C-alpha cells in the first residue's frame, strides 16, 4: 500500500494494516450512546433494576419493614408456595378465567360486526360509532369499575332490566355473589375492550380485497363459507392482535378489580396483581409477593409469545 505524503491530513499515518476509519466509527458509537443513553438509563433505573430486585426478593423471606440485611434466604420456597398453595392457585386461575371473559366476547362480537358491515365505517354514523365505541378506552379503568359496580348494584340497571323482562328471581347483588362475581368482573373488561377489538377487526376486514368475496361467491360459497375461508384467514393478524391485547390486560388487571370488588367475595375475584399488592403492602410478605410477580410476568410471556411467533411466521 502506498501512502502519498500530504500536508493537510496532519495526523500521523497508521502503519498497515491501517485501522479503517476508527475515529469515525468511534464518533458514530458516541452518537448512538448519546441518543439511546437517556432512555436506557431511566429504563434501567425503573424497570431493569426493580425487575432484578424482584427476582432477588423472591428468594427471601422479608417483611419489608426491617433492613433487608435482616431478611432470611428462602431459596425457591416462595415459588413452591405460589405453585402449590390452593388460594394462590385459585387466584392465578381467576386471571385465566378473566382472560377468557376479556377475550372471547369482544372478539366474537367484533367479528360479527366486522363481517356484517365488511367495509370501513364512513360518514357521520361511522364517526359516531367510532367515538362511542372508543369511550371505554379513554376513561380510567377505575371509573369503569365504579360505573359497573353501580350497574351491578342491587338497585342497579342490570337488576332493573331483569325485573323489567320478568326475571325478578334472577336479580341479586352480582359482585357479592360467589358464583357470579368473577364473570361480572369479566364483563366489565369485555365492555372496556369491545370497542377497540371491534374497530381493529372492522379496519382489518375493510382491507381484505373485495374481489375475494366475489370470487368465493362465484365458486358457490355460502356466507358461512365466506366467513370460514375468506374472512377468518384475512383477519388472522387482527385477531392475533386483539387476543394479545386482551390477554395482557386480563392477566395484569388490577384497577377494575380493586375498585369493583376488592377481590371479594372471599378471593373469588382476586387476581395476581391485586394479590401482589396485598401480600407486599398489607401482609408484609415481600418475598412471596415478588415470587408471584415473577410468575405473573412469565405467564404473560408464555401466553403472548406463541401468538406473536405465529403471527410473525405468517408474515414471512
Amino acid at each position, binding site marked *: 500500500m*502506498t501512502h*502519498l505524503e500530504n500536508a*493537510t491530513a496532519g495526523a500521523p499515518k497508521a502503519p498497515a494494516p*491501517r485501522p*479503517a*476509519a476508527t475515529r469515525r466509527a468511534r464518533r458514530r458509537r458516541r452518537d448512538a450512546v448519546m441518543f439511546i443513553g437517556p432512555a436506557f438509563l431511566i429504563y434501567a433505573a425503573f424497570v431493569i433494576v426493580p425487575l432484578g430486585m424482584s427476582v432477588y426478593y423472591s428468594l427471601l423471606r422479608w417483611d419489608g419493614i426491617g433492613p433487608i440485611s435482616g431478611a432470611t434466604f428462602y431459596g425457591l420456597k416462595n415459588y413452591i408456595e405460589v405453585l402449590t398453595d390452593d388460594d394462590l392457585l385459585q387466584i392465578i386461575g381467576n386471571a385465566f378465567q378473566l382472560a377468557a371473559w376479556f377475550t372471547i366476547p369482544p372478539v366474537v362480537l367484533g367479528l360479527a360486526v366486522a363481517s356484517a358491515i365488511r367495509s370501513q365505517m364512513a360518514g357521520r354514523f361511522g364517526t359516531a360509532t367510532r367515538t362511542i365505541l372508543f369511550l371505554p378506552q379513554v376513561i380510567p379503568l377505575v371509573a369503569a369499575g365504579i360505573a359497573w359496580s353501580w350497574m351491578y348494584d342491587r338497585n342497579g340497571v342490570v337488576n332493573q332490566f331483569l325485573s323489567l323482562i320478568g326475571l325478578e328471581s334472577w336479580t341479586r347483588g352480582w359482585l357479592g355473589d360467589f358464583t357470579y362475581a368473577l364473570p361480572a368482573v369479566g364483563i366489565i373488561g369485555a365492555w372496556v375492550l369491545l370497542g377497540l377489538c371491534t374497530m381493529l377487526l372492522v379496519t382489518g376486514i375493510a382491507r381484505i380485497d373485495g374481489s375475494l368475496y366475489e370470487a368465493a361467491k362465484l365458486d358457490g360459497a355460502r356466507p358461512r363459507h365466506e366467513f370460514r375461508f375468506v374472512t377468518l384467514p384475512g383477519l388472522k393478524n387482527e385477531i392475533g392482535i386483539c387476543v394479545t391485547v386482551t390477554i395482557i390486560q386480563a392477566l395484569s388487571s388490577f384497577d377494575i378489580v380493586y375498585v369493583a370488588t376488592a377481590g371479594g367475595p372471599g378471593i373469588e375475584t382476586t387476581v395476581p396483581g391485586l394479590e401482589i399488592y396485598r401480600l407486599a403492602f398489607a401482609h408484609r410478605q415481600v418475598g412471596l409477593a415478588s415470587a408471584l410477580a415473577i410468575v405473573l410476568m412469565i405467564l404473560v410471556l408464555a401466553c403472548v409469545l406463541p401468538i406473536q411467533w405465529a403471527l410473525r411466521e405468517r408474515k414471512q
Partner: protein
Amino acid sequence: MADLKLRDVRKSYGQTEVIKGVDLDILDGEFVVFVGPSGCGKSTLLRLIAGLEDITSGDIEIGGRLVNDVEPRDRGVAMVFQSYALYPHMTVRENVGFGLRLAKVPKAQREQAVGEAARILQMEPLLDRKPAQLSGGQRQRVAIGRAIVRDPDVFLFDEPLSNLDAALRMDMRAELAGLHQQLDSTMIYVTHDQVEAMTLADKIVVLKDGEVQQIGAPMELYEHPANLFVAGFIGAPKMNLLPGKVTAVDGHEAVLSGADLPRLVLPAPEGDKLAAGDEITLGLRPHDLKRMPDGPLELHTDLLERLGHETVVAGHLPTGARLTAVLDGRSPVALDETIRLGFEPSSARLFDAGGRAI
C-alpha cells in the same frame, strides 16, 4: 474543484468483499462515469467516496487531502441521490438552502445562492413548493440544485435518472452535460445504463464484481474493449462473440477457423501474441458487419427490427451460433433469408482464452 485519487480501496461486509482493490485517478474537472451491472459495486464505490460508508482498507484523497477519516460533510462533496432524498417537510427553497443554513451562511447570501442555482436549473417558479407537489423531473432539478449551492469540489450522482421516463431522461442527460460544461467541476456519475455512460463521460470506469474491468474514454472502450466483459457490456446491440482457433500464423496474417467460423484471414497483432493452436474468441460489432456477396459469414435471418435509419438483423450461422448485424435501413432483407455478411478485417477484435483482448 479537485482531483480525486483512489488507492487500493477495499470494502468488506463481514466476510464478503464487495470492492476488491480499486485504483483510480480522476482529474480536476473530469466527468467520470462508473458503469456496470447491478451488484457490481459501483454505488458502493460512490458511497465510499462520499464517506457514507467507511472503507475497509486503502486510501481516498480528494484535492490532495486524505479523507479516509473525514466526515461526509467535510469532504467537499455533494451528492444527488437516486431517490432525490429531498426533505419532504421543507420547501424547495429550504431544501436547496439547507446546507448553507447549516453552514451559518447569512440569510441574504443564502437567498442569492439559492436564486442563482434556481436560475441555472430554471426552477425559480418552484421555489416555494414542497417536494410532494413536484414532478419527478422537477424533484431531480431540486436535488441537483441542492448540490450546486454547496459549491462542492466533487459532484456525486447515484443513478440520478433511473426514476425518470425515457423522454425526460434524454433531456436531463443533455442538461447534465451542459451543467458540467458550465460549472466545469469534477463529477462522478453512477449508472447501469451504458448509453448514459457513453454520452456523458470523459472517462468511463467499467466495474464488475467489485473490480475495475477497464478505464478509458468512451470511444476507447468501444473500439478497444480490454476484455470480453467490457466488449459485451459497452455498445448496443451487443458485440457478437464467436469462439475459434488459430490454425496458422504467417508473418502479418493469422488464419482462424472454428465450429462457427469459416476460414478467416486477419491481420495478426504485433508482437507474436498469437500462435497456432491458440483458442480465441472473435468479436464483431453488429455495426461493422456489411452485406457482401462473397462475405465469409452466412446468416439465416429469423428476426428483423426495422428502426428506419437502420435495420437490426438477427439469425444464426449454419452451425447454429447466434449473430446480430445492423444494416442500412433500406437494405432489402427478409425473414427466413440467407444472406452473406463480411467485415473489414481491422474491425475484428480478438480475445484470448482468458477473455483478455489480444
